[in-house]
């Protein structure tokens, strides 16, 4: 857990028209930023299913960044408004799960704001460094172990004979 | 209206006429200026050239004392003080290490800097807080026919022009109009007077003074109005040298507060007008002073 070589990992979902293009612009402009981000391209931030975010966190991401067009500028009129609404619900859920608010971030970055890609990514990496690893996979393991333990207890209670399930089941 | 008041060293020395006129004029307008307790020199431009951190500590001590004194805005009439105190606020806002240095230094005297006290110039207070209408009401002896060149100098409008335009400030113009004076179009109103150099490199400093005065005369001004003790001294004190070097440019330079006092009918001798090298001509047809 306290790996000295730990680096925060961010999974990002960028919309094709604004934020992905902004990240391309950052590249063309040779703007330098932290390498901790992995971008997944979607057509619209509206495509971001809350399950994607949970999956990313569950599989070891320390943070998730969603990038869309500014409100009013969505290529599909109002996909980003839907994202915003969904995002607010998701935030509440994450809070209940004990996941810090800064770990999941929604940013509006237009196609011309290459420098904003830099500032947002660098800022977020800084915040995640301060927070430390999220360690969801480890937590899942713990929860699994706990559940397995519980299951075993329940099973044991149900079969007081204590006879272990025969290996024959395998056959 | 209550304000904390930071006079600065000049107002206790060469610029004492400024304080002598500022205080009664403000009182006349219902503004109370409460002098900071045991204030120290702001550091001016000289300290900034030697040691930036010490300069910041010096200025910050005054800001901290002002904060301790109460939730009043801090008024300072000297342009250099105004600039230095505002600049220090900027520096402390911008630089985390500087803030730490200053807080540590202030801590040794049980002081702390919170950054909540606005630093204001009397012009700002007069035009924006008191209001020109109130000023106009108090005028008993309009300065009719008096042609005034409004001279702002550099450090009040630059680089932190918060209450007026940096290129064409108008607060003093409007104030003078309210007093009934005729404002001369004076394009040099924000040029440097060279005050910081007249003592050390008079050739360069005085030349700037000469240009300012010459143009004021060329524009038909009777008097130059200033808002800074350094400017006033500089424009007023070197006429002999100027005359010898480039020709006479004899025109009085007074503080705007002195003109206000005159317009309000306060007695001239109590406004420090006797301290000018080049005396201002008495106003035509002066009626009896309004004050009993």
């Amino acid at each position, binding site marked *: 857990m306290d790996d000295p070589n730990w680096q925060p990992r961010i999974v990002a979902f960028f919309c094709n028209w604004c934020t992905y293009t902004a990240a391309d612009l950052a590249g063309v402009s040779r703007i330098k930023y932290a390498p901790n981000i992995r971008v997944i391209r979607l057509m619209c931030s509206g495509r971001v299913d809350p399950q994607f975010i949970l999956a990313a966190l569950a599989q070891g991401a320390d943070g998730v960044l969603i990038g869309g067009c500014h409100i009013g500028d969505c290529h599909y009129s109002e996909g980003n408004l839907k994202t915003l609404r969904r995002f607010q619900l998701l935030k509440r859920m994450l809070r209940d799960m004990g996941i810090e608010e800064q770990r999941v971030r929604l940013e509006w970055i237009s196609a011309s704001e290459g420098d904003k890609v830099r500032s947002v990514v660098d800022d977020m990496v800084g915040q995640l460094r301060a927070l430390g690893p999220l360690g969801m996979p480890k937590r899942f393991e713990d929860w699994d172990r706990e559940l397995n333990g519980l299951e075993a207890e329940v099973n044991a209670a149900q079969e007081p004979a204590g006879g272990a399930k025969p290996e024959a089941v395998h056959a | 209206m209550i304000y904390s008041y930071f006079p600065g*060293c*000049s107002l*206790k*020395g*060469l610029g*004492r006429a400024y304080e002598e006129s500022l205080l009664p004029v403000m009182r006349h307008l219902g503004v109370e200026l409460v002098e900071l307790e*045991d*204030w*120290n*020199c702001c*550091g001016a*431009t*000289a*300290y*900034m*050239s*030697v*040691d*930036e*951190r*010490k300069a910041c*500590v*010096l200025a910050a*001590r005054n800001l901290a004392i002002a904060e301790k004194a109460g939730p009043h805005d801090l008024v300072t009439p000297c342009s250099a003080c105004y600039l230095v105190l505002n600049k220090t606020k900027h*520096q402390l806002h*911008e*630089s985390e290490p500087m803030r730490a*240095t200053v807080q*540590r*230094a202030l801590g*040794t*005297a049980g002081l702390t800097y919170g950054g909540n006290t606005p630093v204001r110039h009397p012009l700002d207070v007069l035009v924006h807080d008191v209001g020109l209408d109130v000023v106009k009401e108090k005028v008993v002896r309009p300065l009719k026919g008096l042609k005034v060149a409004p001279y702002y100098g*550099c*450090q009040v409008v*630059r*680089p932190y*022009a918060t209450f007026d335009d940096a290129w064409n400030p108008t607060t003093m113009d409007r104030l003078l109009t309210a007093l009934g004076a005729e404002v001369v179009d004076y394009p040099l109103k*924000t*040029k*440097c007077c*060279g*005050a*910081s*150099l007249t*003592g*050390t*490199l*008079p*050739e*360069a*400093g005085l*030349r*700037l003074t000469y240009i300012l005065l010459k143009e004021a005369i060329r524009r038909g001004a009777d008097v130059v109005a200033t808002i800074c003790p350094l400017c006033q001294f500089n424009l007023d*004190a*070197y006429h002999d040298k100027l005359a010898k070097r*480039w020709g006479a440019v004899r025109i009085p330079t007074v503080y705007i507060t002195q003109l206000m006092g005159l317009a309000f009918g306060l007695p001239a001798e109590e406004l420090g007008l*006797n*301290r*000018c*090298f080049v005396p201002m001509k008495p106003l035509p047809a002066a009626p009896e002073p309004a004050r009993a």
Partner: protein
Amino acid sequence: MTPVATPRTKTLPAEGGAPLPARATSVQANPSPEPATKVRRTIQYESERVKGFGREVMAVPGCDQLVRCIQCGTCSGTCPLSVYMDHSPRQIMALVRADFKDAVLRSNSIWLCASCYACTVECPREIRITDIMYALKQRAIKERMFPRRFPIPVLAREFTSMVRTKGRITETLLVMRLFMKANLGAVLSSWRQGIGLIRTGRFVLRQERIEHRAELATMLATTDGRSEPAPKHNQEAA
């Protein structure tokens, strides 16, 4: 008549007047009795560059934008004193960027800056030239590179020492001290003005001072301790 200023032989040119300001980089007719054929070499060798000097200056807070300078000359055109400088503000910017440390720190330009901030508000690249001049002044004082008996650094030094010990400035006393140290003759030349000050009641001989002088001295001393409040260096501040 001219009380101070180095070199004393030269009359400073008037704004708009015909003579061009003499510059270190130009071959000039010399009014002194030296032969007219005397010329001056002004080449700058690579060895005169102090590599990293420019970067150090730009690292001072507020000076970072210097890197954007396009040498447009707005600063020099705006500056009321550039006509007296051996290098115009624009040239100072170029020399700093090119690491010519000596040429910069020995130049009278940085001391002629009157802090009127005109260049800073006019600069189209938003370079805070006045702040850069402050940084250069501090550097020159730190490295003791200013011209000897050149009055402005002396004023700065006298000013700071009066503030450090008394808390306040009494201008007339300051000027007296300045004239004593920089140029005795000047005091005499200013006698008429002195009489004027006495006549108008502005000649203050009583030193203004604050009550908590020790407190102020302690405060200022903390800044010498770099990161820790080390009172060891106190005697320097006292």
